[in-house]
């Protein structure tokens, strides 16, 4: 029963068609199969049938309502991915026939004006905050040393989620300075190429408020707390993070 190291007989590859149709093979087997299928039309025909059968298996799963934020995240990611996309040549809706119900067709698939109009505002805000964030890299270091000697005026608990079961922390707000100071420890270790990103959330959508690259960190943000009601932390691609959150919330605090 030792794994074969020599080229497997063709019969063995034919036996593997079911596993291959289900993705239940490793890369070596897949490569062998691809080469085999080019030479054997019967096997390719059988594979088509097996893959057709596999394609109905999602019917065994129960449909479930996804978490509320997923739709907006998909929208945000697609929007952020826009630079590599072709520009829409025409909106979809005008090509559609009017529905038989007599409803006006423009209501079928339309952009979400409030959402995307706000996107432009976020972009502006994000650009401004990016500049601020770069400046803060130096200021942050200075401020952290000063804060040690300055008692925080208000402290808010940081609530962690299942994504960060061992994390804990606080957010301090210093109204005189207009500074929020995040103090967090024991977040999960970051995968290579990722950072933690801080978001401030008010009535609109999350505004990026800087990144940090350690599981235990202090992070200062200059902000008018009255404009926001929540601070949240997500994991995002580094080194600069993103302009809209794409990952799960690891921790948050009510401001």
């Amino acid at each position, binding site marked *: 029963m030792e794994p074969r190291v020599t080229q497997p007989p063709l019969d063995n590859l034919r036996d593997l068609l079911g596993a291959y149709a289900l*993705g*239940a093979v490793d890369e070596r087997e897949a490569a062998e199969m*691809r080469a085999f299928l080019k030479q054997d039309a019967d096997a390719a025909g059988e594979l088509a049938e097996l893959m057709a059968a596999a394609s109905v298996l999602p019917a065994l799963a129960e449909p479930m309502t996804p978490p509320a934020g997923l739709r907006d995240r998909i929208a945000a990611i697609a929007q952020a991915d826009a630079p590599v996309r072709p520009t829409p040549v025409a909106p*979809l809706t005008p090509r*559609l026939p009017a529905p038989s119900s007599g409803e006006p067709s423009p209501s079928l*698939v339309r952009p*979400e004006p409030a959402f995307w109009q706000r996107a432009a505002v976020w972009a502006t805000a994000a650009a401004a905050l990016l500049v601020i964030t770069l400046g803060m890299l130096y200021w942050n270091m200075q401020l952290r040393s000063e804060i040690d000697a300055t008692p925080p005026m208000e402290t808010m608990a940081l609530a962690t989620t299942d994504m960060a079961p061992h994390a804990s922390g606080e957010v301090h707000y210093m109204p005189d300075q207009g500074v929020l100071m995040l103090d967090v420890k024991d977040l999960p270790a970051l995968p290579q190429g990722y950072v933690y990103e801080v978001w401030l959330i008010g009535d609109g959508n999350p505004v990026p408020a800087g990144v940090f690259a350690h599981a235990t960190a202090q992070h200062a943000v200059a902000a008018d707390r009255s404009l926001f009601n929540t601070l949240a932390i997500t994991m995002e691609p580094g080194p600069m993070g993103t302009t809209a959150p794409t990952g799960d919330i690891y921790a948050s605090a009510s401001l």
Partner: protein
Amino acid sequence: MAEQTGAMAELAPPDDELIAAIAQGDHPALLALYDRHGRLGYGLAYRMLGESGAAEEAVQDAFLRVWRRAATFDPSRGSVRSWLMTIVHHCAIDLHRKRAGGPNVIAGLEEIAEQTPAPDTWSEVSARLDRERVRAAVALLPRDQRRAIELAYFDGLTHREIAERDGLPLGTVKGRLRLGLQRLYSALAEPVPGIVQESRHGA
């Protein structure tokens, strides 16, 4: 909210028009596709991964792939829904194996699916399939074959892992996967009396 998006999904254009629009960079079309199929995709990912955060990540990855690869969709190979669920499935397997430290998803699995032509008349057949008919057909599979298929498809196990888990020879597992899918295809492509009660041709 769910009712709203459900109603929107009903009113939105057919899937193939949505895919064509997505290929042109139309964001609302992507969201309309999500509104229509997101529940099934999330249900599939949740069944495979067993927790909401991971399922959410898999569905998010899948729709990003749809966004980027919509131009590669070929309706002659099957329905948009099948294509989308194949992508969700692969994203979920990918995530599952990364977390479990198992083998990577085989490179280009989606491309394989995209390049494998569907059998003649399959797109017509698959368009008529409903959930109950598929479940009935799967329920009629021999238990061992059904278990092997479910371990491979929903648990993301390779045939070697299934053999190890159940203490079976590799050949037995490969045979069960292959024979089970063959039977399933036959049951669905060629309606069998007793399974497809609703088919009443030539009355």
